[in-house]
């Protein structure tokens, strides 16, 4: 399943003096099984973009196409897109509830939205809402909890008494329970300690290995570097770069987009400016950098 965006514009408060353009002509193709990280400063349009993917926001202009779904708020365009489609497809495009089974969206700090007295009830809420029977919902919830690494010891626990990383895994399971093909997450590692972060990213990698498409908004460059297959940089409502993580630090001036520059990159620049003798060109990780310093300085010490 591909996700395609065609020249999407999104304007908040379109008919008021407060109008602001959040997306200003965005086009993209996301392939099945990809692991995409979206980076960009606050207000660059990241969250708006991902919310169009499951029709929480409808583009003011342009559209998103996912299988039989055409997501747009432009009525004229929608009519045209659905012109030659059959009845079922027209119906599917009416309220998009079937789309939301395919594309699951996990908000920032999803644990703030936990509400049930037990983990299992919380995760069952989604499937029940989609009209599955209680039994079906339970089976789906158990599967989802197992996918995020939570076993039966957790089912009856109150979600509020779990650790930060565990809570977040419960919240992600709530989305997984409906078995979406695409999972979109807004800042999944924010506010977690290193251990919680690794836990969550491990879960996401497993899901990706199972064939699910992951779309992750993040500020954390170590997440980009260690987990993404594709990285997209957004600025002022546009996609300004699309590349692979290894090339990101070389191709893109991160500071220009107020992105976090990994410290090893900063340090590499400092060495360069200070006239370091070694070869700094091909360094793309912390370890590369250490190795190069050791090659130069170590040989001096030993020689």
């Amino acid at each position, binding site marked *: 399943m591909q996700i395609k965006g065609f020249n999407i514009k999104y304007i908040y408060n379109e008919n008021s003096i407060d109008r602001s353009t959040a997306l200003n002509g965005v086009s993209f193709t996301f392939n099945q099984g990809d692991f995409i990280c979206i980076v960009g400063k*606050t207000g660059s349009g990241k969250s708006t973009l991902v919310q169009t993917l499951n029709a929480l926001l409808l583009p003011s202009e342009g559209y998103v196409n996912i299988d039989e779904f055409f997501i747009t708020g432009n009525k004229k365009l929608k009519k045209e897109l659905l012109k030659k489609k059959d009845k079922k497809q027209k119906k599917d495009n009416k309220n998009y509830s079937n789309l939301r089974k395919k594309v699951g969206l996990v908000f*920032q700090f999803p644990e703030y939205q936990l509400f049930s007295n037990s983990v299992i009830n919380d995760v069952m809420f989604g499937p029940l809402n989609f009209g599955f029977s209680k039994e079906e919902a339970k089976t789906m919830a158990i599967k989802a909890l197992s996918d995020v690494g939570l076993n039966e010891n957790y089912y009856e626990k109150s979600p509020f008494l779990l650790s930060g990383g565990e809570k977040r895994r419960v919240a992600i399971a709530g989305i997984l329970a409906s078995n979406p093909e695409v999972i979109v997450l807004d800042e999944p590692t924010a506010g977690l300690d*290193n251990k919680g972060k690794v836990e969550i990213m491990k879960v996401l990698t497993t899901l990706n290995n199972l064939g699910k498409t992951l779309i992750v908004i993040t500020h954390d460059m170590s997440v980009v570097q260690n987990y993404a297959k594709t990285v997209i940089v957004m600025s002022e409502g546009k996609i300004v770069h699309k590349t692979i993580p290894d090339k990101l630090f070389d191709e893109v001036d991160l500071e220009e987009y107020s*992105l976090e520059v990994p410290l090893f990159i900063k340090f590499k620049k400092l060495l360069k400016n200070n006239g*370091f003798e070694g070869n700094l060109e091909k360094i793309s990780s912390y370890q590369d950098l250490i190795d190069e310093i050791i090659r130069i300085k170590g040989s001096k010490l030993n020689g």
Partner: protein
Amino acid sequence: MNKPIIEFKNINFSYDQEDELILKNVCFSINEGQYVCLIGHNGSGKSTIAKLLCGLLNYQDGEILINGIKLNDENLEALRKDIGIVFQNPDNQFIGSTVEDDIAFGLENRCIEREKMISLVHDFSKRVGMENFLSKQPEELSGGQKQRVAIAGILALDLKIIIFDEATSMLDPQGVEEIRKLVFDMRKKDPKLTFISITHDMEEAYLADKVICLKDGEVFLNDTPENVFKHEEELKSIGLGLPFIVKIKNDLLKHGIKIDENIKNIEDLAGFLCK
């Protein structure tokens, strides 16, 4: 300034008497004007300490002294006037119907005269970069913007102790840097301002006067950043890493490249390695 402003003495705490202790015999003191980072894994008790400190939770066992005075039910209101906390979740603390109202809320409670209040609201909204959002409602703001508003509301109050409980977790790196600079400037202007930051950011912890590290509800390390980060393996065992400068110095040392002890930032380290 070596006057202790906050002292925790043998604090044991659990939310429910039958539950396991969240804090176990916690002892530490913080001096007036210090910048202290509280670090530790999720669930280690950092936020519980912050809540005890501003009287949001009551303690039964041990003593908490603020400015030498034991915190109790009678003096809680009075002592609390000097302490402000910004929580991680901005939705839990957005009280006003607009940004302007929200920043003004604490000032109103302190009966600040109207004209001064208006000027403070404008000044601090500007300092956190929210001056163009004064009439916005919370639902029109991003998580990071709400955090900026919460920070402005506390910083405007002219407090003696300010606690940030991961107060910038939703901001982008540039936003985090802006707020850090703002706090730095305020501390410079008022050297008596005590600032406590609960954080996962080891780069920030490295800049503090003192780092208190918690592990399963106990104070595990309590020292200067320099000394705390000597415990690489122990920190690793609770999922905490090292600041970049410490890590790179350690890694080079393992290969026999010794770095001058006085080098404390990457600028100097780069200069040293290029000599």
